[in-house]
């Protein structure tokens, strides 16, 4: 059901863990499936993400997308990191099964939440960043036949 890349990131997740005194920490969950993701960012003075770690309570897709998302934002500026959408993460993973698309949103939102936390701590405003939701669960869509 999962692509090889997903399985690879699931089996060998990159950047699992915590960052002490992180510049920003964000936690989001999906009340519908019950899964939770926490993202830690270490951002230097030039606004570059030096370090990024995560912890995930979630399905295979949640683990893999967290792992890939951390890889993608590492080394990027805060502005660049904003462009790491769930689509970008999914593409980097060679796709996800349709029922698992929502899992990738967790990763996107967790980054946004961590950035929001960073901005609040720093008392700055990040262009284009809105206050993230802590629960991303949406209405379940009726499948159309």
């Amino acid at each position, binding site marked *: 059901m*999962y692509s090889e890349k997903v*399985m690879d990131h*699931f*089996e060998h*997740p990159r950047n*699992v863990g915590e960052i002490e005194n992180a510049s920003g920490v964000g*936690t989001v969950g999906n009340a*519908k*499936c*019950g*899964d*939770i*993701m*926490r993202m830690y960012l270490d951002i230097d003075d030039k606004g570059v993400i030096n370090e990024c770690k995560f*912890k*995930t*309570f*979630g*399905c*295979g897709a*949640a*683990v893999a997308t967290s792992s890939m998302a951390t890889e993608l934002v590492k080394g990027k500026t805060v502005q660049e990191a904003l462009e790491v959408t769930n689509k970008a993460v999914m593409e980097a993973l060679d796709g996800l099964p349709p*029922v698992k698309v929502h899992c990738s949103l967790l990763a996107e939102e967790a980054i946004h939440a961590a950035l929001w936390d960073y901005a609040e701590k720093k008392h700055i405003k990040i262009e284009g960043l809105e206050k993230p939701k802590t629960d991303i669960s949406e209405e379940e869509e009726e499948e159309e036949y």
Partner: protein
Amino acid sequence: MGKMIYLDNAATTKTAPEVVEAMLPYFSENYGNPSSIYEIAGRSKEAITEAREQIAKVLGANSRDIYFTAGGSESDNWALKAAFEAYSSKGNHIITTKIEHHAILHTCEYLEKRGAKITYLDVDQNGIVKMEELEKAITPETILISIMFANNEIGSIQPVREIGMLAREHGILFHTDAVQAFGQVPIDVDALNIDMLSSSAHKINGPKGIGFLYIRKGVKIRSFIHGGAQERKRRAGTENVPGIVGYGVAAARAAETMEERTGKEAELRDYMIRRILEEVPYTRLNGDPKKRLPNNINISFQFIEGESLLIMLDMEGIAASSGSACTSGSLDPSHVLLAIGLPHEIAHGSLRLTLSEETTKEDADFVIEKIKEIVARLRSMSPLYED
């Protein structure tokens, strides 16, 4: 991948080689339509008669009361929908439980839209129906009690005898979904006052796509699938002869080996449960410790999520399940685990291992070690776990 340890026998089982063997002649040799008049058709017909008797014997039933269907889901749908229609002049109330299989629950929801009143009984923390609540739920409108024999997720076995007695006293039909129980625990439809009983072959080393509904003589329900005169005019469709033959052999086999097989399974089950609960912290057993299916283990591991656990077990060659396989289309936590009172996040981290006669002590030890490793690993990744 090397050896596979298959511990998802509640989802489906391997079709036993002797079952396949018995089926084979009915594909390309004795392939006649049993309703026909010529000789090879007669062979199909006899084979069906024999299978019907093999199955009836396991239930202490009259073979004419066994009606073949395409599986447990069809049997459940038939029993409920047809009883609702046939007894509508008596009432519209059906009593069931919160822990039934979706084949019952979704059928009930469908019937609610058509005017049925359904009582979904709570269960206790071990997943057992409370008899006082069942008795209180009965009204003069009650036409049917449908309570599963044993639960597919947590293995708890219901007080079927008491339910049957109560139903009989009140003159109410009693249907039981015995898909998990048939061939695993002794069942006598007369002693237990069961009026209708659903079963599915692939749960007891029979083939997929064949099941039956037992309908006690005198129960007035009619066809669910209309058409030809098969199954004494109650279930149309050219008979799945190989499937029926396979089911007969599987049932006879399950009955014959039941005592020894389930004794062995229950021992291994208890060994695994004890070790996992002792050796892995923050765990709990789901379902009744005693009144449970001989091959069912269901344990919650706090702070971790089921799918990840399953994938990691699969990587080690272990096939298991989390919640019930049939419902994996949904992301919601198991309704059964919620019904016994587990909070969402703990329900999510539950693992079901269902053994077979082939499961060995070595398998068990290997699986326990792997569970310990994987649970530790996933917890170290979990934002909920602070060690």
